[in-house]
């Protein structure tokens, strides 16, 4: 279904989220299947992050009320995740021996993991307002 959420800039968000879902997912799969014992928490965290990116991609691509709700939950979880993990990874380096996508606020990925949920949440709000103004909701 095409609506305001997955049109224009929304579709740009879909491809960016898709790239993150795919690369984070591939990385987490490899980490968990080949060296899980080295840093189980970090790798499970990577897998969780990948799952959140994947669901956000689906929500944004799907559009509609349900897609919007999925995307809202995932973008919020992502922002919380990157802030909490980012802070903990600086405060307690020993707890995060192996880099995850959210370590040091996503520094390994050009801080995009920090910026992306903020843009996502802004876009969700922006389109919700536009929809309300147009009376389609």
């Amino acid at each position: 279904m095409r609506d305001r959420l997955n049109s224009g800039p929304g579709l740009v968000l879909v491809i960016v989220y898709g790239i993150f879902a795919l690369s984070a997912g591939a990385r987490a799969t490899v980490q968990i299947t080949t060296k899980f014992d080295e840093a189980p928490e970090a790798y499970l965290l990577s897998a969780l992050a990948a799952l959140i990116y994947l669901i956000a991609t689906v929500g944004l691509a799907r559009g509609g009320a349900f897609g919007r709700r999925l995307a809202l939950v995932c973008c919020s979880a992502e922002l919380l995740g990157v802030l909490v993990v980012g802070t903990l990874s600086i405060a307690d380096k020993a707890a995060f021996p192996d880099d995850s996508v959210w370590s040091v606020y996503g520094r390994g990925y050009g801080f995009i993991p920090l910026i992306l949920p903020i843009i996502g949440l802004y876009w969700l709000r922006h389109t919700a307002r536009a929809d309300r103004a147009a009376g389609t909701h």
Partner: protein
Amino acid sequence: MNETLGAVVTVAALAVGLLCLVAAIRNRPPDLSQFVGAALVEVAALVLTVVAVVAMIGGDRPTEVGTFVGYLFTFLALPPVGIALARLEPTRWGSVILTVAMLVMPVLVARLNQIWEATGA
């Protein structure tokens, strides 16, 4: 990994990315030149992949084969997905989608190189 092919993909993707960026700035939807450009980048990416896979079968492979293959999937999927999404969006944002897809390709080449070199092979 074959560095020449990596450089070819990088240069081609940057050139097509620039073309798409200019179109986006000029408020133009993606045109045929952008789609053909992205398709050529995909062809170069396919050649790189085939050469890398042949090398891996021949025994010349990175330690983290899994990670390398994982990134290869992202690498191969990106141009077609970008083209498909850009076709859905015949506005300037379609050009932005292709710009993003093309500018991420050099990053993926760098990552693939990095993973390959990590072995010292």
